[in-house]
């Protein structure tokens, strides 16, 4: 099955990437955008979803500074 893992910086953690994008937007004429936070999306094809949490904790996300959310997509 196809699995999406969304990884986001934890609330309150400094996100330099998000800040940089937020600062760049007005320069291009996009006003009124705030609280930009940048994470990442990992797509996986797995046969056994039971170990997904462990896999995310050990490799995909740094749980000290990131939260992750697993979305299992139906075939």
């Amino acid at each position: 099955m196809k699995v999406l893992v969304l990884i986001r910086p934890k609330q309150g953690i400094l996100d330099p990437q998000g800040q940089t994008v937020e600062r760049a937007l007005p320069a291009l004429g996009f006003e009124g955008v705030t609280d930009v936070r940048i994470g990442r999306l990992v797509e996986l094809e797995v046969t056994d979803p039971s170990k997904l949490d462990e896999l995310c904790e050990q490799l995909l996300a740094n749980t000290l500074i990131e939260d992750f959310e697993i979305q299992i997509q139906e075939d």
Partner: protein
Amino acid sequence: MSEQQAESLPGVDRAVELGLTKPEYARIVELIAREPNEVELAMFSLLWSEHCAYKHSKKVLRRLPTEGDRLLMGVGENAGAVEVAGLAVAFKVESHNHPSAVEPFQGAATGVGGILRDVIALGARPIAMLNSLRFGHPSSPRSRWLLDRAVAGIGHYGNSIGVATVGGEIHFDPSYESNCLINAMCVGIADPDRLMRCAATGVGNRVILFGALTGRDGIGGASVLASAELGDDDADKRPTVQIGDPFAEKKVLEASLELIDADLLVALQDLGAAGLTSSASEMAAQGGVGLDIDVANVPLREQGMEPFEIMVSESQERMLAIVEPSKVAAVLEVCERWELLASDIGEVTEGDRMRILVGDNVVGDIPVTTLVDDCPLYDLAPAPPEHGLYPAPPADLPEEADHRDTLIALLSGANIASRRPVFQQYDQIVQARTVRRPDEADAAVLALPVGENGIRPAIAVSIDGNARRVAANPEGGALEAVLECAANLACVGAEPLGLTNCLNFGNPEKPHVAWQLINSVEGIAVGCEALGIPVVGGNVSLYNEGPDGPILPTPVIGMVGEMPDATKTSSSGFLTDGQAVALVGPFSPNLVSSELAARRGQAPQGELPSLDISAVIAAHHAVRDGVRSGAIQTAHDISEGGLGVALAECTAVAGIGCDVTLPEFTDAALFGESPGQGFVIAGDAAAIAAIPGARVVGTTGGGNLVVSAEDGASFSVPVAEVQAARDGGLTAYLP
């Protein structure tokens, strides 16, 4: 007030939760004649912590010499500085051990960022970084993970901001398994007339905070003060991990230097541990003034931060400046051009009150001296241990192995193998000053601008520590660390001008740790006096302990030396065939606490031989002068793994072998250590023979390292095998 009376104070439990002792809390209550409120308690808990108040080490540190002819700025400022070729060379080493043990990438990165800001605060442009790292045994997956991520973090920050990482050292020992050490050193250059001090002066002057936004970063212990509505479910709202942003720091760097160049600042200070609390109170204490800080004017990254959170936040990439009112507009303009937030958050006041305001509301009001100077300083209760403190490491090298096999095993061991897999991740040449980088010479060499005489001077920098020897004999081992650092400088032709130290120890309330600390400081002081150099500043990191007890006592020494001519330097390896190889120095090798002893499963204990400091210094001078005159082309100090490893390292650099005959052929003679006291040198035969104290032992050339005894015994190793052993040793442990 007695401890019993303190017991009955309503606020005592919170104070204890924040790390203060009951007598300390009682003292605070006495000094300010009331119980501190939430904001004040948060400030006291940080400023009266070991990290800020040095309460267990301050009395011991008084032993260190802090005066020198070339000293421009010393202890008490953000970093020290010495004069070289008309420039101020600023430098300091600092630890970031505990954050790195939690999150090694960000911990190491923000450690680099923190020490950079210390140097920037002096108005110096950072030109080089060095680091000293300690991890548990590399067979442990956790140690390998810490190594990999810490190195990546150092590279991330240093490479991004454009400061060369030019040197360092890494050691592995089981005592660091749950408490790694990450010490970072920064070197910068400045115009001596523009060196910035941190003392706030001038009543009515404004306090300007500039740099990154303030968030809830690093609010660790103080988070117990958090308001009640944040329960466990909201743990995410209280992060303690600080994230480094090297590009923000680059802007802070350029803006700070521009502000100083334009003469817009009265004083400048970085925000590090304990954030605004520590920076503001230190500036006020140094200047003998009071400060009003209005936290309502601090730009925040998050909604709803409480005043105490703003005061203790450890958000990175921020600076605090004192500015005359007429120059505030100009300062804000410079910061805006560098895309930095800057805000006027307060005023220098008469008297000595540190007042924290929210608009017109006073939420904290305490005497600066109480915060900064009145923390009790403790006497240590040292006691030498009756038996060894550290367990024997696992043996992996049999005693019956012959010299050749022993040499290969040492070379391929994690503590001696080439650091190439690590330092190749660092930009070592950005800014184009690097004349000698790792694996090329014993110290890094950085060129300075060409002088009026048309000659380009340089500085040499080195960082060193040998904790196993310190464990055996704290005074002797720490002295050896100072001498080894000076020996590294001598190898490239440099004369030491000053040192900075980072004292990494366990819990000083334990008598044996206190004994290690006091005697190590004594050893450093003796070394400084012998070399005629001051300690310009440094850092103490205590309570480095794991479940099995304290880390090895780890004083780390960083040293800066002067070279009149950047082109008159040496290589740490043999450069051509047919040169004379000689030994210099009163080298008295022994296996006590050596790398070989560790590999054979022996604990770090035993008697170190006494050393003749004046003979050692004479050898340093002979090598330094020989390198400067061009007589010596190869100079390498004999350190871990002893003479055998030193010779092998000399052959590995350019793949040129040697054939030497030694008077003694024992394990101790070949692999015994006596750091900082002996050198391998090479050059033209006639020139080498003229070096005072040089004992010629052979010649360079050929494809083998050939070591013979006078009685005819010998062993030989192809240089290619030496190189393969050295190169593979650390790679095996990195992903």
